[in-house]
């Protein structure tokens, strides 16, 4: 089996077991803010509709064992709407990197629910390693892979840590008022009860009020932040990063963390000037606007559900910052 030039695009649950679906990417790069956007564009080619190929997971594992791909140089965990796409786009601006930004097949692998309990322990580890290797195949001589996860994947931190014990990671977060305002402007699918199994968000099924979707979202975010804090406290090789540190942290304490090089700086700085989610436009600061838009109701929801964990994250981050001295600029 020769999968040169092919990229996994999802794991389909077939009647006779899971199958990895691949499309022919050739030398195409993942440069869009999100993996799904690249796929949407690719899928307009009739070839990908007619000639998607399927392999078993074992076939993918065997092929990637012989074709390990670019090493994973960083994982970006985050609480959503907090600058993770900016980091992804700064990294994707580098010719030598592959950035898998919320890749759908990884979510297929990481998503476990009561109905789809996933694969047994070591198989899951082998699966996510093989997926990273398949996503990280150099198509243009790239030598580093970065994975930006979906926000709920922090709940699979232990698995990802086991799969990639040496990969540096960060947990990125932001003032929850600004995150929640963003979620109210344009809700993520996961923040709508019923569109994702609550177990993936650390919540209980049925434990929400239809009149309080903002509370559901806030509680899910609190679980994400709590998992991020616990990861930072328990595991090495990780950093807590606040949105307020961006983009400068990418030229400072994240620079060495993510194995970046001096020659990467111009492209990263240029990427930071654009709107990460709509790169054709320029970046405009939106903190003040989001703060002004926050209603009293939203502030009360944040105060009850998110302010405590945000304070803990900040305390932990500042403690580790002091312990490390201070940010070092190249």
């Amino acid at each position, binding site marked *: 089996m*020769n999968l*040169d*030039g092919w990229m996994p695009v*999802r794991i*389909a*649950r077939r009647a006779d077991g899971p199958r990895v679906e691949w499309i*022919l990417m*050739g030398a195409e790069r993942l440069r869009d803010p999100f993996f799904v956007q690249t796929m949407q564009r690719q*899928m*307009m*080619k*009739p*070839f990908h*509709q*007619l*000639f*998607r*190929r399927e392999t078993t997971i074992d076939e993918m594992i065997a092929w990637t064992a012989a074709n390990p791909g670019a090493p994973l140089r960083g994982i970006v965990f985050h609480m959503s709407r907090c600058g993770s796409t900016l980091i992804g786009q700064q990294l994707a601006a580098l010719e030598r990197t592959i950035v898998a930004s919320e890749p759908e097949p990884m979510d*297929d692998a990481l*998503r476990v*629910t009561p*109905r*789809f309990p996933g694969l047994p322990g070591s198989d899951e580890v082998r699966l996510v390693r093989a997926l990273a290797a398949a996503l990280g195949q150099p198509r243009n001589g790239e030598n580093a892979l970065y994975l930006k996860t979906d926000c709920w994947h922090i709940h699979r931190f232990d698995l990802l840590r086991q799969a990639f014990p040496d990969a540096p990671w960060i947990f990125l977060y932001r003032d929850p008022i600004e995150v929640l305002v963003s979620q109210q402007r344009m809700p993520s*699918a996961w923040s709508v009860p*019923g*569109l*994702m*199994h609550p177990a993936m968000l650390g919540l209980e099924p049925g434990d929400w009020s239809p009149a309080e979707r903002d509370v559901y979202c806030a509680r899910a975010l609190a679980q994400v932040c709590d998992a991020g804090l616990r990861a930072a406290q328990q595991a090495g090789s990780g950093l807590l990063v606040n949105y307020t540190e961006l983009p400068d942290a990418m030229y400072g304490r994240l620079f060495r963390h993510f194995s970046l090089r001096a020659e990467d700086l111009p492209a990263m700085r240029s990427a930071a000037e654009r709107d990460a989610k709509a790169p054709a436009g320029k970046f405009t600061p939106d903190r003040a606007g989001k703060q002004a838009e926050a209603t009293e109701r939203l502030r009360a929801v944040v105060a009850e559900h998110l302010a405590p964990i945000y304070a803990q994250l900040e305390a932990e981050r500042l403690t580790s910052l002091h312990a490390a001295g201070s940010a070092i600029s190249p």
Partner: protein
Amino acid sequence: MAGVDTFELAKKSVHLVRLGAGARLREFRAVELGIAPGELRIHVPVVTGNDVELIAADRCLTAREGEAWCIAPAQTCRMINRGIDGCVFLVIDGVVNDWAHALLQRAAQEIVGACSEPVGAASFRAFRDRVFDHPALQARLADITRPDQFFEAVVTAGTELGFAFDSIDVESALNRSRHDWMMRTVAL
């Protein structure tokens, strides 16, 4: 058309479909052609043969003269006449009533018809595996964006390699694959 009265339901339309030797009917769904909820379409082979393929949900039905077939309106359907003679089907669109409902219930319980993979679909499947093993073939087809040109290029490549499928087989396979992609669901 005395046989039409055998079907004791209010009829919206009755027509004959004739496919000449080598003719084919592109894939369709009856729901997309004016069959509303509560209505059904009955296919009655009047003149047919072993080389006529009536294909529903990508399976070839063994529809013989004197039988009547009802294909779920939401299901994909296509026909190919691979024989050397023309074939004729009577097609009745009608409203489901108690008689039709009872008939369908009984048919679903009592009649087991053999079905098989359509010839063209099987041939295309084999071709697809060939493409997966041949980077040169992939390169030849991968960047064609216009569907009509793409279908033509695929059929040409298949014919050159001795495969026996046509653009309708390709289009059906593509529709099914696209549907599978678009319907990929969040595993709740």
